[in-house]
């Protein structure tokens, strides 16, 4: 996939300054960057190394350890289907199947037009309304196959 994001360096500085270049905030800084681009663009890594005074290995260590960080571009809409226990027993895998079919991608993949990324997430804390899914930060509950597909369609 061609990477085409334009990095807003001023914004990067603002994020790093917000945490006072504190190396303990590395994960949160990367999350804030992800909130803008939906992933951590490789171009920012040298800046992080320099500003936070951390080794490159730590950045990759953190980026690959935590699920919320991706080093690959992800879609504009991240569809996270809850696969937590409560949603699992209420048929979460059927929702996942239906969306895999609809978006023609597998769990963990991104559509070619970079519109959707389909992910599984272990519980988003709306267990009483299961099965649920999140599109970016919006939660949709009480789903079945049909309504799940409809929900995702409404974003395209």
């Amino acid at each position, binding site marked *: 996939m061609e990477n085409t994001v334009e990095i807003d360096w001023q914004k990067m500085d603002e994020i790093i300054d917000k945490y006072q270049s504190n190396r303990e905030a590395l994960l949160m800084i990367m999350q804030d960057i992800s909130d803008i681009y939906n992933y951590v663009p490789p171009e920012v890594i040298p800046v992080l190394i320099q500003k936070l005074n951390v080794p490159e290995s*730590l950045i990759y260590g953190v980026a690959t350890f*935590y699920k*919320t960080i991706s080093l690959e571009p992800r879609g504009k809409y991240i569809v996270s289907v809850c696969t937590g*226990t*409560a949603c699992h027993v209420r048929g979460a895998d059927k929702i996942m199947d239906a969306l895999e079919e609809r978006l023609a991608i597998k769990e963990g993949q991104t559509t070619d037009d970079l519109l959707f990324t389909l992910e599984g997430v272990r519980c988003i804390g709306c267990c009483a309304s299961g099965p649920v899914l999140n599109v970016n930060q919006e939660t949709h509950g009480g789903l079945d196959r049909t309504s799940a597909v409809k929900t995702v369609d409404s974003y395209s």
Partner: protein
Amino acid sequence: MTTLENREALRSIRSSFEARLRDSKKKLISLCAGSGCGAYGTAKVYDTLMEQLAEHNLENEVEVKLSGCHGFCEKGPIMVIHPEGIFYPQLKEKHIPDIVENTIKNGDLVKKLIFKDPATKKKITYEKDVPFYKLQQRVIFGNNGIIDPTRIEDYFSVGGYAALEKALFDMSPKEIIDEVKKSGLRGRGGGGFPAGRKWETCAKHHGDRYVICNADEGDPGAYMDRSLLEGNPHSVLEGMIVGAIAVGSNEGYVYVRHEYPLAVTNFSQALESARKYGLLGKNILGTGFDFDIHISRGGGAFVCGESTALMASLEGKPGRPRAKYIHTVEKGFRNNPSMLNNVETWANVPVIINKGSEWYASIGTEGSKGTKIFSLVGKVMNTGLVEVPMGTTLRTIIFDIGGGILKKKKFKAVQTGGPSGGCIPEEFLDLGVDFDELTKVGSMMGSGGMIVMDQDTCMVDVARYFIEFLQDESCGQCNPCREGLKQMLDVLTRICHGHGREGDLELLEELSDMVANASLCGLGTSAPNPVMSNIRYFREEYETHIRDKKCPAGVCKPLFFYEIDQELCTGCTLCAKRCPEEIISGEQKAPHQLEQDKCIKCGICYEACMFDAVVVK
């Protein structure tokens, strides 16, 4: 907002807000804005409500509060109209004009919106009479429905920060610790370790002590921590300040899951307003005591709920646990004494200080005091958050409060303790739930997830599900956990796919034994629990999978097929209409046929049939 400089200033502001709540003549509409109701559309309902009130010129006569989670999330969005306590569940925007016109303006009920109890089919008007709430004792969770979590003044109005006042001015640190010890409070995050003892040990060690709140809530299916942080953040905050006074700490951290953005927002706001009032920061209430709290967001790793991993993560590193030869109360975060407690544990602290350890210890059982919030979810009629005294039976929780199993199906098991717990079968329904009783039957309390399973849940699949989860979440440092869980998953997967072999159960038992005894951290040592408890109570179901290559619950796709019972089928055509593959055929009012070889086993016909005519074979 002005800084409160001393005890009197805090007292006077609290009593003025208490009085305002007590003497208010206005109608109060409390609309739940918790995550559960939010998922069903609270935002739209709220907008319509405000529009309608404006249209009727009622904005100044009615107070509208976006409250935290009321707990009855299944029926969201929920509205309660005070002072009467009129309960309107499952609201949509279109219902609002009726409510404003009739109930708010004229004081009449909107009959069609009144709650109908699914179990008894009785109409219930008032919140206090709803069976889901009636049998609960909401010591920790009760204020969620009446306060706006973004307003510290609302917390004052329900007696907020009285415990902080007492702890700062009337008690010595040792007395606080003694009070917590006497209360019998045990940690709500999983292990059930006595909180007072942890505090006492932490206070004895020297260094910059840290007070930390574990809001990682990794147990999938449990969300009480989320609801507390979102719905009553100041109660958690107050608990943490009291803890800091007790052990002499000047800095605290809250480690919140990334998946909980609203909790982060509401808690950040709580910190902000507490700082403005001078309840956090330097020289709190003029006593010379300094304390402040930072929020750290996790990155979606289950293992980061474990204490040493959490502290590594707080330090900005990958969250890998370490062996606990030296406990974190001695050397934890930044190698300093660190006192970690769960969100719910912290929320219990103000109650203990306010009402006294004696009162607190009068609730619950011999070994487990106080109440516990359970997240009652899965195949149960009334899902939501349930707070009951320790020792309440599973039957009361699932059947009386929960209203029994969905669609009149048969109860099969209840899973407690999350990925470290186990499944409890029907024979133990009369078990009084507390830390020790759950452990005795091979499960555990965990953080209070209670996932109800019915006849359509396959126990082998559940075990496979948990082991898949855990091997995915294993940090990979130690061999037994990394490789052992992988092997267990292989065995369980082949059983679910119909390739199970004689001896597989013994192999699983052997692997479980190894993983449980040789792993580095709690993730590995407790990982085999879901498998072991399952084999113990549902061995027959495993054997059916292995020997007969059948999945009686109809979950493991290669091991069953659907058939239409020719006697039971009424020919209503519903299944044929819904089938995505269009492979069900038949005349109206005559039994239908299903083409086996084309069936994808999606289960839509099985769910749709109202006559139990689609059967699992």
